[in-house]
């Protein structure tokens, strides 16, 4: 039963959705504070390449090297986000162009490729990679076994992150402050909350999440280096945040839906079905557009809309 196509699709939906989930959680944090970061793809790629470099170069047992590599990836994403934060928060640059610049700078034909080339990363597969763990020995259970209990540590960590980010935004004082800044920064400022500091912190934290998302590729899904191995996941993450109405729990659902769509054509082909792969591959993109249309008109606009000041630089004396 566990080799039936439905179970395989569900299990890979979770696996393929995980990088998307990390990136989307990061983007969620940034957007809730009012910063639209279009550099997700770039931050994921620097995370992916430096995480991979760490695995290749750090000596030690697997249990030490892999967490270190993830930390390196998070740090790399955070540094990339810091550059963007300086540009859009302090220098008040256009967030859209700045985000694109970050993706070009770090992206498939930029820094990530430069680093990979310089350290000849494409030559060898990863020395260690995250493997599926058999949690509580329950992997053999029908359906839920492979889907829930047979995933990698990165997947389990992502579930914890979803809970933490969700609770942080909805149940804590700083979380409330972030949401206030995303909606009406002037009011938050009047309350004595530092808009600049909060926006910096959340953009950088978002970058760290994106870096880990990138590492999901180079350390788990495809543990080797090819330029641009994230293949546009960062862009989908941006769409996913909208798809999830800016809520952490819905990011999880959305990520797995998108994950299923990207896994489906691969699995169907492996099972010998003749499909037009482009049709399936196009589905997530078309769906994003459809969801966006729904969100931006009618029902979505009433309650579930974007943070009101998303993409708008905050300058105290201007309005």
């Amino acid at each position, binding site marked *: 039963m566990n080799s039936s196509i439905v179970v395989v699709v569900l299990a890979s939906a979770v696996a393929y959705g995980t990088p998307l989930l990390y990136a989307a959680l990061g983007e969620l944090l940034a957007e809730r504070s009012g910063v639209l970061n*279009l550099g997700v793809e770039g931050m994921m790629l620097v995370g992916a390449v430096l995480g991979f470099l760490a695995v290749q170069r750090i000596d030690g047992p697997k249990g030490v090297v892999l967490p270190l590599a993830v930390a390196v990836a998070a740090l790399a994403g955070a540094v990339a986000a810091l*550059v963007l934060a300086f*540009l859009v928060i302090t*220098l*008040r*640059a*256009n967030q*859209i*162009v*700045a985000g*694109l*610049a*970050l*993706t*070009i*700078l*770090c*992206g*498939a*034909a*930029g*820094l*990530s*490729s*430069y*680093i*990979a*080339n*310089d350290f000849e990363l494409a030559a060898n597969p990863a020395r260690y990679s995250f493997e599926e763990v058999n949690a509580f020995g329950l992997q053999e259970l029908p359906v839920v076994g492979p889907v829930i209990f047979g995933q990698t540590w990165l997947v389990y960590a992502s579930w914890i992150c979803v809970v933490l980010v969700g609770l942080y935004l909805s149940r804590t004082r700083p979380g409330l402050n972030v949401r206030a800044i995303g909606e009406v920064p002037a009011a938050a400022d009047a309350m004595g909350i530092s808009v600049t500091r909060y926006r910096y912190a959340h953009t950088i934290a978002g970058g760290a999440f994106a870096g880990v998302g990138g590492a999901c590729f180079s350390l788990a899904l495809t543990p080797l280096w090819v*330029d641009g191995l994230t293949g*546009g996941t960062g*862009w989908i993450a*941006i*769409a996913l945040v*909208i798809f999830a109405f800016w809520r952490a729990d819905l990011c999880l659902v959305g990520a797995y839906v998108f994950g299923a769509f990207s896994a489906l054509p691969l699995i169907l082909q492996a099972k010998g079905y003749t499909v*037009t*792969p*482009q049709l399936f*591959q*196009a589905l997530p*993109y*078309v769906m*994003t*557009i459809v969801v*966006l*249309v729904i969100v*931006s*008109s009618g029902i979505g*606009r009433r309650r579930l809309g974007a943070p009101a000041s998303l993409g708008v630089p905050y*300058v105290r004396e*201007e309005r």
Partner: protein
Amino acid sequence: MSLPQVRIEKRLEQRRWLMVAVPLGSLVVAHIAIAILLVATGHPPIPTFRRLFDAAYLADGALTNSLIAATPLAFTGLAAAVAFRMKLFNIGAEGQLYVGAIGASGVAILLAGQSAPVLIGAMIVGGAVLGAAWGAIPGLLRAFLRTNEIITSLMLNYVAALVLNYLIFDSLSYWRDTSATGLVFPQGKVLVDAATWPVTTIGSVAIPFGFLVAVAVAFIVWVLYTRTRFGFEAQVIGDSPRAARYAGMRTRRKIVAIMCLSGAIAGIGGASQMGDFRHVLDARGLQQANYGYTGIVVAALARYNPFAVVFAAFLLGGLQNAGYTLQSAEFPSGLVGVMQGMILFAMLGGELLVQYRISIARPIRHARAQTESAS
């Protein structure tokens, strides 16, 4: 003693010399940043830059090749500039260029027996129409359903890429070469010779016809934005949608029109790829080139001025050409992307200097103490 305070104030008037000085300064800053990166990774910066500029502009045939690389960037740059100027963030030039290439090559295959002028004209129209149609989708959604055009135009890039792949790799479409070899090695039908766009040669430099078209388009865009009511209104809508509505401007129509225009320009870029350079619907090659995204860098570097776009396209086209030429030699890959990103970053940071005045105010008490000691 307190630290001097940095004050940032909006400039009431933008200084003209700053508009030239800031882009130039940004280029310098970007090069310094890249030099640091090169040193940090053990590459000598000066020789690397020299080889880069040699390959881009000075070597035999370098200018010709740089113009070839600049042509698509001029189109996608203009496409971005047209839309961004109205604060419509169309980042779909990539996909619009693909469908433009599909349109132009389809027309060229259909009209294979016609004379060259007819074919070339038809290709431009074919590319423009399909590009405009592809750009119209996010435009209509934005105008009538208030859907964010950034994400929709971006998603459509992926869809367009998949359409390209489908036409060439996974179907026996009208565009695919269905001869014996074409079935084994999927590729597009080769266009007839009459569909090859002419080349103008000045001295030893060959100028592709597409580049001249891009210059003409730049002129049209300049006229549109500086000399027509349509362009004026588009800018007002971009700067202040509310004011535009109160003034009775037709906001929705203009959004759709500008998105169509932007798409059409990118589409002609696709047509130029077919007519000038590739002569066959090259699904993989077009996707690897990233013309659309680089076009946004070009537009931002040019501060959305159409003539400056053509110049910026030439600059970045030169870089890209150098990147290809040097790839085989011992040359750090990815450097060109890093340079483009750095230049854009520096440019964006410099924008602050154009828009704002930065003054460093000394604390008052400190200043008084100084004047007292002076007297």
